[in-house]
């Protein structure tokens, strides 16, 4: 039994989702191998090696991996896959793009968004926007799993680092080329790993007024999220979206402001520890799952909240 974790990163920083994925890998194998593929990403390998419990980090550094092109990383992983019985990635857009391609090339099934590892062949994952939980047994020799990071506690402890093995292998297909990237910049904590998330919906009315959500987030040190309605209406960029088709979050505190609570949104946040809903419609479905509900005009209530949090 040996497990490979493909590390998500931007060549400088290891993505925090790796910490949760590694935690899941530890349930399968005492000594998972962490694979860092990128360009000038030595720092990422060092961060991976410093996680408590990591025994092996493989580093493949080449200009052809400067951007995570699925075709290139897939072929690289295939060249090493035969020695592993499980391959894990976070269930992020990175992992979802890459792992099914690897699985198909290996002629094995993939389980998406694993929320629980029952044994080395048996896994739980949500289906129907989180409205049902499916338990599956994988019959293939190699298990390909994307890990729902909010379902596994991140490995935060550090060690004085382990050795890093350099592997020299460049693969660059000519069929796919990276052209450009436009990232949304934010000083706030990252949505997927924030302890507090404040989300706004269509009730915010426009992009200008959505700033109110950001102001509330700032006094709480929270990340900002949004419903699909708010994204589609152009209040915020799409990577703010929480839901079945956006990000899945499970913070300690989730504050939903002006969000009715459509099934697709609930799929992305219903595992939050405490949910607060602020909505003027007292029959909004969000109140059926909210730990604390406040009925009223968000344009009166949210500024009050900001004021009281500042003075407290």
């Amino acid at each position: 039994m040996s497990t490979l974790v493909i590390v998500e990163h931007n060549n400088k920083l290891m993505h925090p989702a790796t910490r949760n994925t590694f935690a899941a890998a530890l349930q399968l194998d005492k000594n998972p191998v962490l694979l860092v593929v990128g360009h000038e990403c030595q720092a990422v390998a060092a961060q991976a090696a410093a996680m408590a419990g990591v025994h092996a980090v493989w580093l493949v550094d080449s200009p052809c991996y400067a951007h995570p092109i699925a075709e290139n990383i897939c072929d690289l992983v295939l060249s090493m896959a035969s020695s592993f019985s499980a391959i894990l990635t976070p269930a992020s857009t990175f992992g979802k793009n890459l792992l099914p391609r690897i699985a198909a090339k290996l002629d094995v099934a993939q389980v998406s968004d694993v929320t629980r590892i029952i044994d080395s062949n048996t896994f739980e994952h949500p289906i129907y926007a989180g409205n049902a939980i499916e338990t599956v047994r994988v019959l293939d020799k190699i298990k390909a799993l994307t890990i729902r990071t909010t379902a596994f506690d991140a490995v935060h402890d550090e060690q004085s680092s382990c050795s890093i093995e350099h592997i020299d292998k460049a693969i660059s297909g000519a069929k796919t080329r990276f052209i450009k990237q436009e990232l949304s910049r934010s000083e706030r904590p990252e949505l997927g790993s924030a302890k507090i998330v404040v989300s706004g919906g269509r009730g915010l009315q426009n992009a200008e007024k959505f700033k109110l959500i950001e102001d509330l987030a700032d006094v709480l040190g929270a990340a900002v999220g949004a419903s699909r309605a708010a994204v589609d209406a152009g209040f915020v960029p799409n990577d703010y979206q929480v839901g079945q088709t956006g990000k899945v979050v499970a913070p300690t505190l989730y504050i939903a402001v002006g969000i009715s609570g459509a099934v697709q949104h609930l799929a992305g946040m219903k595992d939050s520890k405490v949910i607060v809903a602020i909505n003027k419609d007292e029959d909004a479905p969000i109140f059926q799952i909210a730990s604390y509900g406040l009925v009223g005009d968000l344009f009166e209530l949210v500024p009050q909240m900001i004021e009281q949090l500042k003075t407290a």
Partner: protein
Amino acid sequence: MKILVAVKRVIDPYVKIRVKGDGTGVDKQNIKMSMNPFDEIAMEQAIRLLEQKIATEVIAVTVGTEASQETLRQALALGANRAILVSTAKEHCSLNIAKILQKIVNDEKPDLVLMGKQAIDGDNNQTPQMLAALLDWPQATFVSGLTMNGDSLEAVREVDGGLETLGVNLPAVISVDLRLNEPRYASLPNIMKAKSKPLTMIALETMGLELKEHIEVLSVTAPPTRSGGVKVDSVEELINKLKHEAKVL
């Protein structure tokens, strides 16, 4: 250019699903079914390429029971030229669906395969990537912008941190995201016209594919229910409760 669009018949997204008591799955008896919403977007994109004369033919394909003909008729009403149903009574895992589609691609030789990024029932988000792998074609997933340049295309992808643009050579597999377009409704005359468009049925058993079992579903259960808590009367009370009762502030 010939485009193949893979569509799936799923429980309508607005239906509240019910998990069967015996843990074998989700109740589909007398439930409203529709085309997977992501596939509608893929179909809309193909039709727009047809209207722009970039595409010459759009073929809708699905794998499923004979009831899936209804979904294909919808695709034809939206503007697909013809449709193929690979009929099978069984539910198949993503990898086997990808293998079936691979066979159809090898027979039809499209230049582009458009698919939804995920089906809203299994939420797997796998089949397009798997099909691309089996064909050894490039892939662009979660696409929200698409520009054709001769024999390559530029795809804008929705990634976690924002957007990424890839250049992809044809033939390719593209999986589409919700923001790519706004699907149209089929007009009544088009629904009538769709009835006479060609729909080929192929029985899976006659395709000569050896599909093995990769996954066994042991059970399907309802998630733990979360009950509503309390309504508070003021911001002051809310902050007080968050601090002292829930202890999250």
